[in-house]
């Protein structure tokens, strides 16, 4: 690869070392870490993982907008993990500021909180941050590369830069002659990156805001897209694991039968389990099944009743975690409305079971895996193997769904433990669906208690307490990162809602650590959006007010109010419904995005049928309307499916659900008609992968109430009512 150029992070405050500089070959230059140009073509580096949310396309579009290339003219590469790719937007959601609060002090605090994330070079895909993080950074990178290429063309032709323009990966000379970017690569390699003063005005955009075709869409429609599970290397062997379903140590095991099975090459103990290495994945899984083991006890309560009891016991002064919202006097109500809500553990269960391929040699470790945390993997595998982090190379793979699953790296650690024993042989470890389910770091279990009051047809008091274990503490404990202070996720999606209720308090109670938990699409808001909005719906009903009109009356944030109004229009909210039908609204502001959902249901003799779903969301700026629609629609369907029929429960310390027959979520026949609308009134640009989830479940519960008079306060709803 001769004569290439790499365009880098120059414009963004003080840059981290450009990771492309290190691998640079003769004739290549590095100017930004996001654009690589060689005589073979143009590669855009898209460091945020793509788990189906279209992150690669969105990142590429932001760079391409300023670079003046078409999306069909470029290749993309997730790049190597590097501090330069740290996530700017991640820290702001860790702070107890409302996302609707954009005053000077809040913004200052956000930028200060950003510093440690930058310092650590934390490269994480999550929290719907890909777009807010890259929105400016990636455009600056594209602009820098463009201007540097123009400078190279000026040098080559002797023409002044001002006379040059760019289009479709070419510099255009005044006489119309086109000079391709790739032909300028080696010359551009020798000049300093050109400093760009301003980004283009949105009115000049060619890509952003217009419907785009995802760059992976043809590959994904023709079976040509490779995922981590499809990695094939010369001499590779396949591994399967049998892990303690109680997530503890192995007392003893017998693999005598497994050892003799066809294709089995080795049996190697791994942390909390045993692995089988064979010449075919199926043979490895079969042999793993044949192992007999005596599993140690679970490091958490063995039975579900104990988990619920622990939550119930946490509504106490000594478990108080936060009270970011406390206004008026919530004790004033004399005839309080009391209710209790519950939300279960949930598996992530993306369709691609987790997997990792690892090759250990004497000098380096190579890891091929779909991951949201490449830098943590480097650190963890370094600690596990004794190799220097610089000798650990993570090759990010396309991800077949995550929903937060790939914020964990247990599978990589297991694969490395095996590969350390089999140096020189690439090992692909694929968890069986059953292991994937049993070993999942699930969504949190949570409980909420409402004490509220109404007066003169209005909601007057809402006092909501929420108890759950700390998601962030559980998750970060596996990354060796201690977390101090209150966990804002315990109350996220509840304390920060844009409503003016005169007496209004949200209290977070931190339950003890129970089963290990992790971030699940929309994190705290996945449970709290349900709690808060259902509680509000109950109060509105008690006040005798209209559910939508009263939410709008209480709303104190313009973009949120607009979202409620629009969903009302879309669903023709006040139109009459037939006997047995019902309409419910749900609202949640999460990750800075207000999202309102209306669900229409019919109570049929065979159970509840979902007829229609309407959703409106405001992300400030829509990068690609096609993908926006897909993400909101997918989020709503994801929220509904799990609310209807999913839970992970523990008995004897083991998850009772092993595969999709026990964990169905939504199937096609249950899926309502879905209509989505995007608004752009918000002050900040926000990501859209998660905010569709939290309002879906309450909208359905509220619709079921409207149709049947039955309040459902616990997910999954099929414990209380049948569905068609």
């Amino acid at each position: 690869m001769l004569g290439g150029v790499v365009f880098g992070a120059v414009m963004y405050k003080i840059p981290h070392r450009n990771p492309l500089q290190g691998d640079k070959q003769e004739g290549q230059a590095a100017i930004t870490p996001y654009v690589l140009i060689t005589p073979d073509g143009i590669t855009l580096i898209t460091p945020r993982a793509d788990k189906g949310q279209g992150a690669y396309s969105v990142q590429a579009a932001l760079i391409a907008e300023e670079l003046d290339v078409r999306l069909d003219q470029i290749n993309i590469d997730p790049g190597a993990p590097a501090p330069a790719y740290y996530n700017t937007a991640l820290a702001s959601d860790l702070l107890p500021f409302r996302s609707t609060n954009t005053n000077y002090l809040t913004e200052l605090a956000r930028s200060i909180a950003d510093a440690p994330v930058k310092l650590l070079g934390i490269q994480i895909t999550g929290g719907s941050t890909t777009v807010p993080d890259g929105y400016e950074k990636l455009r600056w990178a594209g602009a820098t590369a463009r201007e540097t290429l123009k400078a190279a063309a000026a040098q080559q032709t002797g023409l002044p830069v001002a006379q040059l323009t760019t289009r479709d990966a070419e510099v255009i000379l005044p006489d119309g002659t086109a000079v391709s970017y790739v032909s300028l690569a080696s010359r551009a390699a020798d000049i300093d990156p050109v400093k760009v003063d301003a980004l283009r005005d949105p009115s000049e955009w060619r890509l952003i805001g217009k419907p785009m075709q995802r760059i992976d869409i043809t590959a994904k429609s023709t079976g040509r897209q490779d995922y981590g599970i499809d990695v094939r290397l010369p001499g590779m062997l396949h591994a399967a694991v049998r892990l303690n379903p109680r997530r503890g140590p192995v007392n003893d095991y017998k693999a005598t039968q497994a050892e003799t099975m066809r294709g089995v090459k080795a049996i190697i103990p791994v942390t909390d389990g045993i692995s089988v290495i064979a010449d075919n994945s199926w043979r490895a899984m079969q042999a793993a099944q044949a192992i007999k083991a005596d599993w140690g006890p679970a490091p958490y309560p063995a039975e579900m009743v104990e988990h619920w009891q622990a939550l119930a016991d946490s509504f106490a002064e000594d478990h108080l975690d936060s009270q970011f919202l406390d206004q008026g006097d919530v004790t004033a109500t004399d005839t309080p409305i009391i209710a209790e809500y519950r939300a279960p553990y949930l598996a992530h269960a993306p369709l691609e079971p987790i997997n990792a391929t690892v090759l250990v040699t004497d000098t380096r470790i190579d890891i091929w895996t779909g991951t949201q945390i490449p830098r943590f993997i480097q650190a963890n595998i370094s600690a596990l193997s004794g190799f220097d982090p610089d000798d650990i190379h993570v090759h990010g793979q396309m991800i077949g769904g995550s929903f937060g699953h790939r914020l964990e790296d247990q599978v990589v650690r297991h694969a490395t433990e095996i590969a350390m024993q089999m140096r020189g042989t690439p090992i692909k470890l694929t968890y069986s669906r059953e292991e994937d389910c049993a070993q999942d770091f699930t969504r949190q279990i949570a409980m909420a208690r409402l004490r509220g009051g109404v007066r003169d047809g209005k909601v007057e008091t809402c006092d909501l307490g929420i108890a759950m274990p700390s998601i962030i503490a559980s998750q970060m404990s596996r990354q060796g990162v201690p977390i101090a202070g209150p966990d804002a996720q315990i109350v996220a999606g509840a304390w920060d809602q844009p409503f003016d209720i005169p007496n209004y308090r949200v209290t977070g109670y931190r339950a003890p650590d129970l089963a290990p938990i992790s971030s699940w699409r929309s994190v705290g808001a996945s449970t709290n959006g349900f709690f808060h909005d259902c509680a509000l719906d109950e109060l509105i009903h008690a006040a005798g007010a209209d559910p939508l009109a009263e939410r709008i009356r209480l709303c104190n944030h313009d973009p949120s109010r607009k979202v409620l109004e629009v969903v009302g229009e879309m669903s023709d909210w006040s139109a009459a419904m037939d006997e047995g039908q019902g309409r419910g609204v749900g609202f949640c502001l999460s990750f800075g995005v207000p999202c309102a959902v209306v669900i229409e249901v019919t109570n049929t003799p065979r159970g509840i049928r979902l007829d229609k779903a309407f959703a409106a969301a405001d992300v400030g700026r829509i990068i690609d309307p096609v993908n926006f629609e897909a993400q909101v629609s997918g989020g709503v369907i994801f929220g509904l499916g799990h609310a209807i029929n999913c839970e992970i429960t523990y008995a004897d310390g083991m998850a009772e659900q092993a595969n999709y027959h026990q964990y169905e979520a939504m199937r096609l026949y249950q899926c309502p008609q879905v209509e989505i609308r995007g608004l752009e009134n918000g002050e900040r640009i926000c990501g859209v992968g998660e905010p569709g989830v939290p309002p879906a479940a309450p909208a359905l519960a509220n619709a079921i109430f409207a149709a049947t008079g039955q309040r459902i306060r616990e997910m999954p709803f099929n414990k209380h009512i049948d569905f068609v």
Partner: protein
Amino acid sequence: MKLKVNGTEHQIDVEPEMPLLWVLRDELGITGPKYGCGIAQCGACTVHVDGQAVRSCQLPVGALAGEVTTIEGLGSPEALHAIQAAWIEHQVAQCGYCQSGQIMAAAAFLDVNDAPTDAEIDRALSANLCRCGTYPRIRAAVKTAAAKLAEA
């Protein structure tokens, strides 16, 4: 043992109980069919055997009688099957992991029913799980493909 996949004859040496899915993926390197559940619950592994949609994770290769077509054999980026073209037009895929199976199931279905109603589409494709929730676009793409196939 011999088997024919996408028009090519292959010689394999495996136990007859090995599911077709793993023969395709690990023995022949044909990775379009995906592993999702291994117990006929998700449909990610769907292939055609003599034109019929089959869950390859549940079919012991020894019991295979007929020619196998996988997503790779249905069409290619250069020569798309009408269903693949509709899937691209509607941009159905999110993570895309289920879509090989969705497309193979839809292709076999439209082969026997070229003017399906919504209820028929729902029934025919409900055994294929999509964790990303692409169902509304699946419905739309099946209808577009049906219309296109009817024209042809």
